[in-house]
């Protein structure tokens, strides 16, 4: 089921009502079944994949918990079983076609007659998200950071909890299971905040992201040879905002829906485009993924022993030990290559990951130069640079192929094709408008709003906000575009 639909609004109203009307244990079973129904509205057949992943890790984690540290080999075997099943599912559903295509391409290049047959496999929504959650749970139990959950309903809900099932935020088991055990009581503060977040999310999705989508789609469908460098920058900014509104919308609705049910799930976005470094950007963008990647991939690759699982965002942080620069750099590039590949089974995503790794590497190297810039002027230099680099990273993320990606970057790097306007006038206007509104929204939220909240003007302002949002959501609410991150 997708959030931007009447079906979801009806479903959620019924589920939230019955959830609070039920007693506590039946409430969780009801929520578990509702979560399966939510997923089944897309393809009920694929529920088996979620259940397989969940049951595997439930059983394996209990084994890992029960086995003493002395039986290290057995514990490792059980961990391998869990990783094999989870990564095997991911490999089969998400990457089989990619490897088949590339191997067949290689055979063709080598002149071999061998061809691997193609299998028509539909990617289950959310598989990258819930497999990461179950993997992190098993690893945390293996590392003894977490006790295995004995109640299947608590664990099952951690995996299947519908607000974050399809596109995150990627949650750590302890964060959700502890809340379930606390058995949250109804709280009007959660309800009001939750509804507010749902409205914000729907607004971002149906009013902003869905209306940017046709502009972006048309521009990316154009022959790159007819575009100028300015056009490529405009495209990058437009898609950067489309994907931000789209994905942040999903996270808002997920957080809001969970809050209405009395449950907190972690924030995933925090105005990423105001970042003054790429490191900061990744503490503000898809926070739950970057913290996951740091804890379960980057830090282990650097050789740092992870002693805790903080759940806070950011890649490139080290805890206690300091790995060598060479190992850190290798880990950086390997992590980002994998992170790109996690997003999609295409070379373009790997390039996107390596692009980020390269610029983070450059940023690290240039770090000492920062002290030559007066403190007060630093944001004026670092913000536009970071914004430009992060926006241009979206080109391979959105382009159909590596060829198109390089053609588009080529327009930008060639002085002869830098200037010119090959897009409709409104496209540039929309890009400029969205950028301006984003900065104004940040300033409003951080400067005006805190002052406004203590005055009487808060109340009419709030009513006005809801009025505009509800009216526009009702006008634009159509499930015409799935959330971009569903495909990952």
């Amino acid at each position, binding site marked *: *089921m997708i959030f931007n639909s009447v079906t979801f609004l009806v479903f959620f109203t019924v589920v939230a009502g019955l959830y609070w009307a039920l007693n506590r244990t039946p409430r969780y079973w009801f929520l578990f079944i509702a979560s399966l129904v939510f997923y089944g509205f897309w393809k009920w057949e694929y529920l088996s994949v979620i259940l397989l992943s969940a049951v595997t890790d439930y059983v394996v984690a209990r084994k890992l918990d029960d086995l003493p540290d002395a039986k290290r080999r057995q514990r490792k075997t059980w961990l391998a079983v869990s990783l094999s099943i989870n990564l095997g599912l991911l490999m089969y559903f998400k990457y089989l076609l990619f490897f088949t295509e590339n191997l067949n391409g290689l055979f063709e290049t080598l002149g071999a007659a061998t061809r691997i047959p193609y299998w028509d496999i539909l990617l289950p929504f959310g598989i990258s998200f819930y497999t990461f959650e179950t993997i992190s749970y098993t690893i945390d139990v293996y590392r003894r950071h977490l006790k295995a959950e004995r109640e299947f309903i608590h664990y099952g809900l951690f995996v299947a909890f519908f607000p974050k099932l399809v596109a995150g935020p990627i949650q750590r088991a302890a964060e959700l299971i502890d809340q379930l055990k606390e058995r949250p009581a109804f709280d009007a*503060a959660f309800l009001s905040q939750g*509804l507010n977040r749902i409205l914000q999310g729907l607004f971002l999705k149906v009013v902003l992201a869905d209306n940017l989508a046709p502009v972006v789609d048309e521009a990316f469908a*154009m*022959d790159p040879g*007819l575009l100028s460098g300015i056009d490529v920058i405009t495209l990058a900014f437009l898609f950067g905002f489309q994907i931000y509104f789209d994905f942040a919308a999903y996270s808002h609705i997920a957080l809001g829906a969970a809050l209405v049910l009395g449950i907190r799930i972690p924030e995933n976005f925090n105005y990423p485009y105001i970042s003054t470094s790429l490191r900061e950007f990744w503490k503000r963008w898809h926070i739950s993924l970057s913290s996951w990647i740091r804890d379960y991939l980057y830090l282990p690759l650097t050789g740092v022993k992870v002693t805790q699982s903080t759940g806070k965002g950011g890649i490139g942080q080290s805890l206690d030990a300091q790995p060598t620069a060479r190992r850190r750099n290798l880990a950086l590039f390997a992590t980002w290559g994998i992170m790109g590949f996690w997003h999609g089974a295409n070379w373009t995503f790997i390039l996107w990951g390596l692009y980020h790794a390269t610029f983070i590497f450059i940023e690290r190297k240039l770090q000492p130069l920062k002290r030559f810039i007066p403190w007060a002027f630093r944001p004026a230099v670092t913000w536009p640079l970071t914004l430009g680099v992060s926006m241009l990273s979206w080109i391979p993320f959105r382009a159909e192929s590596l060829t198109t990606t390089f053609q588009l970057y080529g327009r930008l790097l060639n002085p002869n094709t830098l200037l010119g306007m090959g897009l409709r006038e409104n496209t540039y206007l929309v890009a400029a408008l969205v950028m301006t509104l984003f900065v104004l929204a940040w300033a409003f939220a951080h400067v005006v709003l805190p002052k406004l*909240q203590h005055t009487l003007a808060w109340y009419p302002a709030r009513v006005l906000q809801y*009025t505009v949002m509800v009216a526009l959501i009702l006008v634009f609410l159509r499930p*015409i575009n799935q959330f971009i991150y569903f495909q990952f």
Partner: protein
Amino acid sequence: MASIDNRPAIQPSIDVLLLLIGSIAGLVVMATVFSGNRSFEEAALGSLTAVHEAQGPQGENTHCQRINEEDQTAFLEFVSKYASTILFLGNSQTHSINQKKEGEAVYPELIQKRLDSIAILTHSMPNANLQEFLVSHAWWTEQINPEMVVVPAFMDDLREDGLRGDFLKSIVSGGYQMETSHPLEVKLNEQLDFLTNPPSEAGSESKEQTPQDISEAALNDWLSEHTSVWRNRANARGDLFLGLYGFRNKLFGINASTQRKMIPARYDRNLKALDLLCTRAGENGQRVLVYIPPIRTDVAPPYDPEEYLNFKRDIESQAQRHDHVVFANLEDIVPGPLWGLKASTDGSGEPELDFMHFQFSGHEILANALIPMLTP
């Protein structure tokens, strides 16, 4: 009470109340401000210009904008009474009369009255582009195979792009695909397929309906049936976008006379579409008339003069590549006083020059100019 997003807390129940009040106000706003009583096309045309679709001698339906099943049936019945057929393609100039008075008609209807042995059929789409003409022509060729096709090439329409399912209803619903030999036709077929089989509302790329699709369709039908607010949402979206255009125009001082630039990619695709249309018409033994339509020439047109000159040259050279195509430049046949005004689009309140839609006398002049070129 502690705030859960680190902002100073206000009484949560008051916030829920504010949300309730805001939601009700939002519904009221939607029902009143965005009433959506006019279609987007009507609103875009302005109050000084009226839509008129051409009719046959007995009042038959011979002109459509959207090609639905009704049009299709009526057209087939109409052409069966005649030995030959001419298909007129067009944009809003073809179905609009500025300052229309009772009894006035558009040029295809005037031509039909004069050429009583030929069936004149018209398919005009607001802001049509030549790719849409290519698809429309291919489909009508399969339906009625007209003897001749009349294609206006507006500079404005070469700024448009892609296919709009709303104006190709029967084509889309029937799952029509053009015979292709050119990448542009392949691309347009892909668009047709997308319009015929839109991605599942639940986002699945699969063509089969998911439970979400079924429930969403049922809920939408129910809401549309029981609430006018829901039913009018498409027009409300149109109202909103028109408001945004108005705001943009006011902000940047844009009006109907402001110069607009050609968009290279769209221009190239539309020129190619014209070439393909002429080629396909030739393959089917049809004659083609390609003309540069009338535009106000007593004032500077809203285009870059050099681009407009190049545009006319490009259209003429495209037409001249084919033996069965006649080209005519009719840009200056309708004198300035016969053009009209349109309501302000820049928020100034002052009426603006309408470069696209002329008065009835203009339709008479255009009909007179076209008639000699329609008969072999």
